[in-house]
Structures are given as structure tokens and as C-alpha cells.
């Protein structure tokens, strides 16, 4: 094998890919756009929805409206001074001599005519402290998807009712809150002795370090590989249809050509993933998690990224070589789609029990290994060295096998024009001399 030719193809592939406007836009503008959209959405929610929500309160207990009005005033003052959003305006309803039915019909009419946004009906016995109290109150509106107001009323009424019940029972609410304070379990790792034999303080377990970082890495790998490798199919198809591949095969073997393209694609994927990883690192540092992205993590990420590009890139490259147009290629892509679902469907199960038989088996299945073994490497308990070693051997062997088979498909497929190939044809081309 001529490595300098492989390098030339890789360098050309890399330059052709990263110099395109589409790559630069996808790489840099996409996060900016997404961040901008998220910011705008957030601002829009707060700024646009500033309408006052007037709601009627039928308080049959006779003791809740006043504190509810005070709570609303406090909420509105906070909204006006900082976070923005709508204001809540409760209005009391005097039942007078009308029946409950008459009041409900009248208030429903006022909601429909937009005079009110909603109305609330609080029962007489809601404050009973002997256990006979009603456990709910009615909220009526013709805006079922608007949850901000009902959730706020629910919280405010609950707090008011609890305080009133304590008062009626002669219990100091402050004392109660002290007595019912929850007892929290602080999760830590195991104790270990350091080199001097001294017992080392166990680290506190936090969700970001234990799950968010490994899962985030796995998905970054997945997105990077699935963004860069399908490009191989497109470029190979274009080279085949414009007969560039015939010129190339006059200068190097199909295997060298394929490998060069894969190395180039690995470079493109590394730039893509590196940019996002760098961004994540910057965010982590600003949020006080600067220590979570370590050299060990980056090295394993790069190793598994290269293996994943070889695996999926060779598959996509072979499809490009075998087909004559993108429509043909769609039908041959089904296996990749099925394989890529495996890490997405199983990562939570693997994360919950990283040392289970299922987690071991699925992370040793070569097409899923780059994603799931990477995940396991940063979960606790970490996989034993033999499993990591075996996964590397199995995945490397599979990747080389894929590249070899793709090279064989290249040799035949690149010179075939006209109808697309079936899996049967591909198998025949792989077996061919």
C-alpha cells in the first residue's frame, strides 16, 4: 500500500470538504443560529406575553381571596421588575343569592366574551384541618394549553391553605417547616487510599460529571459521524458519475482510494467535533466545570471517532460506489439507519447499569462500540481493561473488513453505470477476484 498516495487523497478530500461554504456555514453559523433562536424564543415568551390575565375567584371559604390577591400583587411586582411576563389579576365574585349553577354559567359567559381569562371555584371546606377538607378546587378556562396561570394559582392556594390550616390548628408554621425538612442523601464515590496510605476523601457525585458529560460526548460523536460520513456517499457518487474515479483508479488501488477518502473524512469529522468540543469546554469552564474535559477523555473520543468514521464512512462510500443516483442509494442506507438506532435506543439502559451483561454485550457489538464503549468509559463502574481492549480489536478488525469490502465494491461499482446494485450484487462484487 502506498501511504503517500493515501495521504494525498486524504488531504485533497479534507480541503475540498472544509473549503465549501456549506461546511463553514454548518460548522459555525448553525450553533450561532440555534443559540440566537433559543435566545429569541426566551425573550419573545417574556416580552410578547405581557397581557394581564384577569380571573374570577368564587371563594366559598371566605378566607382565601385576600391572601391570593396579595400573592398576585407580589408576583406582578416581581415580573415587572425583572423577569417579565404576564400579570395575574384576581377579582372576587359575590355569590349573593344566586345558585352555584347560575354563577358558573355567568362566569363561563364572561370567559367566552373575553372579559375574563378564567375563573376559580374554591369550596367551603378547603381549610378544614380534621382531614375532611377538599383536596382540590376548580379552575375553568377555554385555554387548556395555557398552564402558567393554573400552575401559579395552584401553588399560591396550596401555600395559603397550608398556612391557614397550621394557624387554625395552633401550630407555628415556622416550627413545622423545620420539623418536616427533608433529609437528603449526598452521593459520593468510594473511599480509596492514596500512595501514602491515607484515606482519600470520596468525591461528591454530581449529575453533570456522572451522566451529562459521557452522554453528551456520545451524542457529539454520533452527530459528528452522522454529519460527515454521509458526505462520502455523495462525493463518491459524484466522482463515479463524472468518471473521476476511473482516472483515480489509474493511479492508485481502490483500497488506497477508499482509505484516503476515509482519512480525509476523519479529519473533517475531527474539525467538526473539535469545534463543538472546544465550545463545550468554554461553556464548562465558565460554569465551573473546567476539570471535566480531560486529556484522557479527548484521546478516547478521537480514537472512537476515527473508528466510527472508518466503519460508517466505508459503508457510505461503498453505497456511493454501488449506485447511480441518490434515489438508488436511499434503499441501501437502511442498515446504517438500523445500526445507528442501537446506541440511541440503549444508552439509558447502559448508563443505569454499565456493568450489566446487556451493557457489556451491546458495547462489544462493533458498529455500536464507538458510541457505547465511549459512554461506558466515563461511567462508574468503568469497564475492565480487557473489555476495552477487546472492543478496540473487534471494532478495528470490523472497520478494516468494511474498508476492504468497500474497496472491492469500489473496483466493480465505480465502473458500472446504469442500474443500481442490490445487496446480492454487492456480495458478489466482494467475493469477486
Amino acid at each position: 500500500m502506498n501511504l503517500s498516495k493515501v495521504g494525498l487523497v486524504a488531504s485533497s478530500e479534507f480541503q475540498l470538504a472544509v473549503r465549501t461554504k456549506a461546511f463553514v456555514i454548518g460548522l459555525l453559523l448553525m450553533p450561532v443560529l440555534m443559540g440566537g433562536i433559543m435566545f429569541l424564543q426566551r425573550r419573545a415568551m417574556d416580552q410578547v406575553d405581557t397581557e394581564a390575565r384577569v380571573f374570577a375567584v368564587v371563594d366559598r371559604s371566605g378566607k382565601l381571596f385576600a391572601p391570593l390577591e396579595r400573592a398576585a400583587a407580589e408576583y406582578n411586582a416581581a415580573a415587572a421588575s425583572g423577569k417579565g411576563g404576564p400579570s395575574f389579576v384576581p377579582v372576587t365574585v359575590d355569590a349573593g343569592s344566586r345558585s352555584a349553577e347560575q354563577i358558573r354559567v355567568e362566569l363561563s359567559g364572561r370567559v367566552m366574551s373575553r372579559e375574563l381569562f378564567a375563573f376559580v371555584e374554591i369550596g367551603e371546606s378547603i381549610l378544614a384541618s380534621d382531614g375532611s377538607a377538599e383536596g382540590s378546587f376548580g379552575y375553568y378556562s377555554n385555554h387548556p394549553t395555557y398552564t402558567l396561570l393554573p400552575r401559579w394559582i395552584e401553588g399560591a392556594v396550596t401555600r395559603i391553605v397550608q398556612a391557614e390550616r397550621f394557624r387554625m390548628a395552633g401550630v407555628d408554621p415556622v416550627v413545622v417547616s423545620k420539623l418536616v425538612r427533608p433529609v437528603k442523601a449526598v452521593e459520593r464515590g468510594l473511599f480509596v487510599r492514596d500512595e501514602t496510605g491515607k484515606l482519600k476523601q470520596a468525591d461528591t457525585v454530581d449529575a453533570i460529571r456522572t451522566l451529562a458529560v459521557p452522554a453528551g460526548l456520545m451524542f457529539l460523536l454520533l452527530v459528528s459521524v452522522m454529519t460527515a460520513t454521509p458526505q462520502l456517499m455523495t462525493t463518491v457518487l459524484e466522482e463515479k458519475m463524472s468518471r473521476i474515479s476511473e482516472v483515480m483508479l489509474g493511479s492508485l488501488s481502490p483500497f488506497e482510494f477508499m482509505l484516503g477518502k476515509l482519512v480525509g473524512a476523519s479529519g473533517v469529522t475531527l474539525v467538526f467535533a473539535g469545534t463543538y468540543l472546544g465550545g463545550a469546554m468554554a461553556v464548562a469552564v465558565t460554569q465551573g466545570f473546567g476539570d471535566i474535559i480531560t486529556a484522557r477523555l479527548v484521546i478516547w473520543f478521537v480514537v472512537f471517532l476515527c473508528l466510527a468514521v472508518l466503519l460508517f464512512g466505508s459503508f457510505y462510500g461503498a453505497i456511493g460506489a454501488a449506485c447511480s443516483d441518490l434515489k438508488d442509494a436511499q434503499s441501501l442506507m437502511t442498515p446504517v439507519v438500523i445500526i445507528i438506532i442501537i446506541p440511541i435506543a440503549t444508552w439509558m439502559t447502559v448508563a443505569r447499569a454499565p456493568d450489566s451483561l446487556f451493557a457489556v454485550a451491546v458495547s462489544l457489538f462493533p458498529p455500536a462500540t464507538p458510541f457505547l464503549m465511549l459512554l461506558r468509559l466515563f461511567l462508574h463502574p468503568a469497564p475492565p481493561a480487557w473489555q476495552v481492549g477487546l472492543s478496540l480489536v473487534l471494532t478495528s478488525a470490523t472497520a478494516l473488513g468494511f474498508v476492504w469490502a468497500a474497496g472491492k465494491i469500489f473496483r466493480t461499482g465505480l465502473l458500472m453505470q446504469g442500474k443500481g446494485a442490490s445487496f446480492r450484487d454487492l456480495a458478489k462484487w466482494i467475493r469477486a477476484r
Partner: protein
Amino acid sequence: MDTAIRLREITKRFGDVTAVDAVSLEVPAGCIYGFIGPNGSGKTTTLRMIMRILLPDHGRVEVLGDDGTAAARDRVGYLPEERGLYKKMTVRRLLRYYGRLKGRRAAEVDRSIGEWLKAMGLADWADRRIDALSKGMAQKVQFMAAVVAEPDLAILDEPFTGLDPVNADVLKDAMLDLKRRGTTVVLSTHDMNVAERMCDRIFMIFRGRKVLDGTLAEIQAAYGADTIRVRTEAGRQALAGLPGIESVNDYGNMQEVRIQGDPQRLLQQLSSRTSVTYFEVTRPSLQDIFVRIARPGPEHASPPTGGRA
């Protein structure tokens, strides 16, 4: 080295179709060797086997003294029938890429690029993208891509396609220049005039088998002097029903006639019918021989023996 290409009984099948059937051939070094044959006759498959893009099912291919793939990939330049250029690359970058893929150092390739761009009149276009070039310019770039690494053997499949007469002349001169430098040129073409005028030897493949191989003179000699070019006042009508005529190729003002028998007798018969203004006894042209082989009809005999396969 005396022989640039040596093919020994090579056969290539695609499923049930035998594209190339036990073809043997020796291409002497330093010559221009013409490859002719109708579409689908196995010409491109043979060229691809020489390039080692395809491997024969049987037989042996030796290129520049090497029966492996190294020589084919590093010392052979290839211009395929259908063009393959990266449209978004500049001319210079593309030529450098193709040249370096042949194992040449960057400095050597750059020097060669400069010379070829000047020779082909494209020096001002060196830093323009391929998709900005005209069809003729792109064709010249494709040719340069095949020869920029200064190969010992250049395989050119229909190099004149899409070129106007001026650019065709530039390319012809470039090919002759290659020959003067000692490069062996395999020229695959459908233009029999080009093959007659430029090629030292001609090989014809038909239905996967070699049917002609030799110099133009050898090939024509094998077909004898059975061709008459005649111009009469009555045109083609004057030839109707005359004995000994095997076929008539009518060019309107002139007819090319293949006969069996004595040309003088034909002249006498024609003179008795009409006024004969031109009468030439000649050897068949390569075009005529090609058509005789590739369009066999009741009046077309199988290739005669001698001076061919």
C-alpha cells in the same frame, strides 16, 4: 525496453458476456499504437486491463516490463473516454494533484505543469476553476492531467473529442512531441483518418477478439487492391447491374467500389454506359476495412488472412 505492453491471451467476462476473448498483443516502445473498434467491442475493457483498473480472468498483462500494478499506476498516463475532472479545483491544483498521485515530487510536477500550460495555450487559465473553462479547454486540461507526470506510456481514449480544428492541431502536435520524447502512446479512436495519419501500428478489436494488428500498409496489403474510386456523369446509376461488383459506397459525386475481377474490364463497361471523369485503382482505406469487418453483410467477406490477427 523494446515492448511497452505485452498482452498474452487475456480474457475478461462480465457474467455471460465475454468482453475480451483471448487477445494477445505486443506494443513496441516509442510508437503511436492505434486502438480501433466499434462501440462495445471490448476496447475500453482492454484499456482498463492495461491500466490494471480491471484484472483479466485469464491471461497475462505486462506493462513496461512489469506484470504487477506498480508500473501501470505510476508510469502510465490515462485519458479516459469520458472526462473526469474535479470542477471546483483550479487547473493548477488539479494538475498538481493528478501529477503527484503518479508518485512525482511536487517540484517536478510544478515544472511540468508550467511547460504544458504554455504548450497548450492555457497559461492564463492556470488559477481558474475547471468549471469556468470551455469544453475544449477542459479537454486539454484532461490531456495534460494524463501526461503531466511525464509517463513512459500514455493511454489516450478519444482525445480529440470536442476539440475544434485549431485545438485538435495543438493536441496532435503535443502527441507527436510525446512520441519524440520516447513516450509510447496508445491512441484509441473512432476517427479512421486520425488512425491512418498518426499511428505507426493499428490494432482492431471486434466482438472481443483481435481482428487486425499491423502497420497500415500491412493491413491494406492483406485486403488487396480491390477498391476502385470512380466519378462518372451518370453517378451511381452507371454501376447498376455490372458483374463483379461486391459493394458500392456512394459519396454522391464519387463512388467507392469493391470488385472481384479485372478493374480494366469494369472501366470498359462503364465507358460504354457513360462518360468516366475519374477512375482510380487503390487499396481500401482503413475506414473501408473497418466497415467491412464491423458491418458484415452478405457481400462482406470475413477478414482475409495475412497482415492481421
